[in-house]
């Protein structure tokens, strides 16, 4: 099949470009250590979330030195926690989020960052993020979830360690009572 020399050159460059793109993405995964949302979070029955040991009372839980798990339930049109209470995490921590949906599909986006996932009923999105400095982030639902979708928002607060510790202790005591 006859192809013009210029077009052959273009074809070759296009293939290099494609391989270069795949190479960059692979570097991002292997070199820069960016992990994908996948099936490691497992599944959960969305109809009995309230009885679930974690999602029944979602929030933060210390799992090790500077290690935390945060459980978040998304439902029309709130993040629990996130909307009425901000999600609180300490500075310098490694936090693993477990996000699921109670009713329809939602989105979980920490505004202006790469922390972004879908929340699908029955599935748990599990991902780990490192928080360095104290500060505040916005939280929004980026998947249409019904007529009040635009009011579904919240806050994520990265607290100073001492401040966080006293808040966390207080939480623990309240739960025991």
């Amino acid at each position, binding site marked *: 099949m006859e192809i013009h020399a210029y077009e052959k050159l273009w074809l070759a460059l296009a*293939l290099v470009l494609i391989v270069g793109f795949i190479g960059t993405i692979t570097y991002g995964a292997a070199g820069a250590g960016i992990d994908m949302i996948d*099936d490691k979070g497992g599944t959960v029955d969305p109809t009995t979330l309230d009885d679930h040991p974690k999602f029944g009372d979602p929030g933060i839980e210390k799992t090790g030195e500077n290690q935390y798990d945060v459980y978040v339930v998304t439902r029309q049109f709130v993040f629990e926690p996130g909307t009425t209470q901000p999600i609180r995490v300490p500075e310098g921590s490694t936090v693993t989020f477990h996000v699921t949906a109670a009713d329809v*599909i939602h989105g979980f986006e920490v505004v202006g960052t790469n922390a972004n996932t879908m929340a699908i009923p029955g599935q748990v999105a599990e991902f780990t993020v490192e928080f360095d400095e104290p500060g505040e982030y916005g939280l929004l639902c980026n998947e249409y979830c019904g007529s009040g979708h635009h009011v579904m928002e919240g806050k994520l607060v990265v607290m100073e360690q001492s401040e966080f510790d006293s808040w966390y202790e207080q939480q623990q005591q309240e739960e025991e009572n």
Partner: protein
Amino acid sequence: MATASQRTFVDRFPDEAAVVKANFLVAFVALGIGAFFGLVQTLHRTNIVRVIDSADYYTMLTGHGVLLAIVFTIFFLCGFFHWAIARSLDRPAESKLFSWAWFGLMTTGSALAAIAILGGLVPNLGISADVLFTFYAPLQAHPIFYIGLAMFIVATWLAGADWFLSYRVWRKDHEGERIPLQTFMVLTTMIMWYIATIGVAVSVVFFLIPWSLGLIPSVNPLLTRTLFWYFAHPIVYFWLMPAYMMWYTILPKLSGGRLFSDPLARVVFLLFLLLSTPVGIHHQYLDPGIAEGFKFIAMTNTMFLLLPSLLTAFTAVASMEHGARQRGGEGYFRWLGALPWRDPAFTGMAFAGILFAAGGFSGMINAGMNINYLIHNTLWVPGHFHLTVGTAVALTMMAGSYWLVPQLTGTKLYSRPIGLLQVTMWFIGMVFMSNAMHRAGLAGIPRRTAEPQYQNFDFVTPIGSIFELRVQIALGGTLLFLSVVLFLFNMLLTSLGEESDRPVDEYLPAPLSGAEGSPRILDNLTMWTGIAVLLVILAYTLPVAAIIQNGGGLFGGGLPVPATISAGLDLATTALTGAVNTLVGVIA
């Protein structure tokens, strides 16, 4: 003799012209309503003018998506393909009745879906379908929305059958001849469509219709979502293929030149047939419940799908350059000035191509697996697809109409200057709107949101301001709406015009490099279909099995089972698909 063969399409194929006209009519009505909804939305979400309740925003957004991305594009496609088959095989359709039957079914299906959607604007009616274009369960629409959709899909299958039938009859009289290029393009596109629509048909017929009627209590949301994307990425190419077909077979003529290469055009359409479907998971990069390996496979397939588009860019520009040089153009760049910029059909398609080049770039970002975190479900994404389906496709279809519609009505275009103004306004409006949407997406502003203004935080953009972005989006959207008004006005007055002996110059010249120099295997549609199906099976069997197994069965609601997908199997599939892709690349 010569005059007979130069007669216009409507004189040679009056019955086909009537079917094409009917398809275009429905397409243009949908375009008008959809564009109006777009105007309301662009002013609402930027908080410039709010005339509706924010809850109704989503009804209008559903209408905008379905009317423009399904009804406008696909009715136009059906009309265009019907024209192309009759023209390139030089024979009327086998049964006029059958053509009207699929048109009737398609229109009925669209009307049912439209009633379900618009019902949402009428309080207390009890009919609504505020589920957006993607209709992700467990959001639920009225059953007639899904039934209308199913009817529509079946009608497109029948339309395809109409064209395949014409081809079979033509083949009997033309043993051993190459498939005419336009027919080749129609048939490969339809084979892709048959493979792709299986996903949505299964989703709608087996899950969503019974569920919306209350026959089954629940669905597996990840399964219906995956089936949707199995269908809805190839639909992107179903929109795009008529535009590509115009760029390959009509644009060279409009430029005063000839198609640069017929064989490469065939290769490009075959690559789309092979690679369009096993990529849908790239819309689900951030979905839980799908292993990373499957996402990586979808990404490699998607990246290789850039190849046919990049080849198209070269061939289309080279064909234009041929025209420009025949018209006396010289130099490395000066030849661009020799192109017929006063012809709205040419200029519209050229503008569409320019913006598609930009949309191609944002599509490359979308395709990149992990960089998807940056832009997933932000305004970047509609910024992207308003350049692709919203310009590469829609503007090419409008520009093509300036050349096609006179062939169907036998009347000259009402106004060339208005046409030129229309395509230019679309170009400028889209530059404003889509660049601002891309930048807003990088600032984290979500898509599909009536009031993206929040209590807890403000968006920040490094350059310019959020207000400036909003103004650009509103201004661009308004220009786009006005452009549609001009287009519809021009089409209406064209159809009411006086009959002309030479309404348009219909002649299409032969390609510079013809099909005779290409391997005959390119025309072996059965073989290519087999490979396409194989690729789909490779890409989808394991993910779908895992979703059914882990997501509580076919209908959801079952007990969760821990996810265990063998890493070895995963790797083998990646390697296999990668190898096939490379092979395809080499063949090309």
